[in-house]
């Protein structure tokens, strides 16, 4: 007698808003590329070289392919969890490329490109997805929550937004110590509603540490749409009341993102901190544990598809004669091969045993930790 409830949306979704990127001038959004990749926006083309733009493009295509593969690995039970990045490729690439390697990056949860742009390998990236023992965080974080000290990349905290004061504080410390490195943090629109956002902004306004705060406004925080997230005109505008310079930028325009970040970075002595709002859209699921059909209109994704950052940059390159289908095909084939190799290698790696959770808790271990460790080991032994 079972009646099966289907999993379709049952509430009243608001009608999708028009894509703000289509009204960049009116909404104060800095933009280089139009929807079809022509550089005729309100911000000057940074005129990057062919090599530089290709690097952007190839990285965006690569992280999209990784996202696709990661999703399938999760859906076949081979990795535990997945955090999609579809639609948000431009922010991670444009922003990261504007920094120097010595600068510190505090991640949110969707920026995989940072890892690769800082020279780390695909194999180790997939090792992290599998929770392998030899990846830098030793399998202790959820898949996609990458980080590695040797490239000044700090993994996100589990509590979203909690690393905002960390980033601002670290930047301040560096300033006090007389260092020249700068700091940047990615965080979401949802994270801007946390108390830590206030603390960090207040501190940044007063102490002027060398920090850039990139609010990746992707339209949704899991099930919460923008109009339930803030009553402010936008996220950048929140900076005004803290005395923090702020700018809104097209989050699907890698060239604009690069230009805006580079400006904030290179002039940090003069400008002080900058709050950058990157206006983008999450095309995929929140995570592999989500189901957007329950709260979001499919139509909203359709509206955003013409603003796909990968498509726009490809059209820009084709206009310049830098790209064609042959190159595209070769790139896709190369990525497929590289990703396959990385998956095979990562899958063969060992995962950490249960006792490893007691390592690195304190600089020096103590009796309590040792006792717990022994207990676990004896239980594991009893199971064998």
């Amino acid at each position, binding site marked *: *007698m079972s009646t099966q409830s289907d*999993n379709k949306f049952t509430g009243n979704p608001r009608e999708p808003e028009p894509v703000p990127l289509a009204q960049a001038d009116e909404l104060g959004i800095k933009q280089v590329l139009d929807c079809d990749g022509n550089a005729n926006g309100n911000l000057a083309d940074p005129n990057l070289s062919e090599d530089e733009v290709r690097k952007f493009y190839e990285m965006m295509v690569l992280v999209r392919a990784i996202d696709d*593969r990661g999703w*399938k690995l999760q*859906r076949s039970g081979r990795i535990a969890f997945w955090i999609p990045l579809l639609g948000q490729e431009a922010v991670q690439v444009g922003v990261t490329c504007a920094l120097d390697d010595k600068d510190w990056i505090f991640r949110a949860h969707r920026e995989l490109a940072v890892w690769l742009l800082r020279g780390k390998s695909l194999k180790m990236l997939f090792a992290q997805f599998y929770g392998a023992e030899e990846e830098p965080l030793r399998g202790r974080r959820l898949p996609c929550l990458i980080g590695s000290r040797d490239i000044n990349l700090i993994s996100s905290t589990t509590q979203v937004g909690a690393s905002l004061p960390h980033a601002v504080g670290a930047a301040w410390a560096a300033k006090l110590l007389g260092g020249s490195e700068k700091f940047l943090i990615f965080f979401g629109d949802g994270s801007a509603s946390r108390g830590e956002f206030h603390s960090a902004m207040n501190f940044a306004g007063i102490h002027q540490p060398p920090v850039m705060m990139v609010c990746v406004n992707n339209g949704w925080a899991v099930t919460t749409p923008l109009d339930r997230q803030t009553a402010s005109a936008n996220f950048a505008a929140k900076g005004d009341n803290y005395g923090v310079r702020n700018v809104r930028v097209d989050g699907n325009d890698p060239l604009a993102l690069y230009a805006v970040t580079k400006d904030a970075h290179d002039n940090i002595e003069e400008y002080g901190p900058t709050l950058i709002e990157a206006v983008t859209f999450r095309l995929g699921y929140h995570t592999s544990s989500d189901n957007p059909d329950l709260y979001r209109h499919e139509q909203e994704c359709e509206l955003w598809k013409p603003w796909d950052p990968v498509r726009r940059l490809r059209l820009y390159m084709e206009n310049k004669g830098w790209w064609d289908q042959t190159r595209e095909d070769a790139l896709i084939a190369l990525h497929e091969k590289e990703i396959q190799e990385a998956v095979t290698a990562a899958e063969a790696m060992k995962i950490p045993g249960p006792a490893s959770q007691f390592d690195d808790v304190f600089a020096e271990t103590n009796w309590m930790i040792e006792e717990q460790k022994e207990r676990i080991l004896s239980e594991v*032994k009893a199971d064998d």
Partner: protein
Amino acid sequence: MFDFKLPDIGEGLAEAEFLNWSVKTGQMVKEGDVVAEISTDKVTVELAAPRSGQIHEICVDVGEVVKVGTVILRIDDQSSDQVSQESKPAEKQLEKPSKVKAVKVRTSPVVRRFATENKVDLANVIGSGSEGMILRSDVEAFIKQEVSQQSGDQIIKLKGAALSTAQNISKAANIMATTSISFDVNADQIAKCISENNLSPLTVISMCLIGTLKKHPKFNATIDEENNQLCISDHINLGIAVTASDQLLVPVLENIGSKNSEEISASIIDITARGRHDQLKPQEMRGSTFTLSSTGGIEQGLITSTTPIINHPNVAILWASRFTDRPWVSEGGIIVAKVMSCTLAFDHRYLHGADGFAFISDFEEFMQNPSSAL
């Protein structure tokens, strides 16, 4: 050969229902191809092939609910041995033996304490939590079982379709305000009609019922508690309760109001036969707007009333007995007539006594005059 076990693709998923297979035995698949659609308590999810190769065996039927870890698909990927889906921890073999006494139990401190207080040795309790974690409910169940085992009772665990039927029945019993009216009808005219037209009793009773439902559409409805609404259906989907190998199934005859007696007879024969042989698909048991429970085939003795439970979200159900020869008063004298006992149960939140009496009166009218229903 690679055995694909149902993975935990959510957070702490325990089981999932198979909605659809997109591959067939013998077909080649590529790693990452969608192979099936499953429904968990939260979402509908597409499962991807973990290996490339040829589909050797599909181990789960559509409609089946299976636990995480069950082998669902076997893929011939040319590997000689079963490749393990789980990675092996690195240290297991390397760690030195320990001084602490081995206790092979996974549980939380609260449950340990609860077990100690109740003098339960946790080593004897099977954990139902993730990775065999013992939960408080496991200990409670263990205590109960201990008590009943001492009395020699037999424990039967409900699972699968039986469990979901049980849950649905208790839901209906808990939320509906069921009331019922029992009555007897003289079925002599029906018996005549059955032999003259060579139709089954169930077909003729269904026809009389359809005629009655058309005059009383409020009985042909479903309720939606969440939105406090009653949906009076414009077509009749008649659920017919069938008992099959210990299970109660309710296959549904869709849009039966627009069919003639031959068509109805044929679909009743088909659906009840397949029901008894467990060959019904889940979708054939959904969407009923009224339920008929006819137990003629299994009755013994003289049964004159029952307390039917409504098939939620329907609002009413009719139970009808087999025909038995009984004394019947007719034109001032007593005759021997074929009598059918019935109980009409309905949800008193939406339907009232007067509705029930009017329904029964028209049903009796059709029963006396079956040709008007045919």
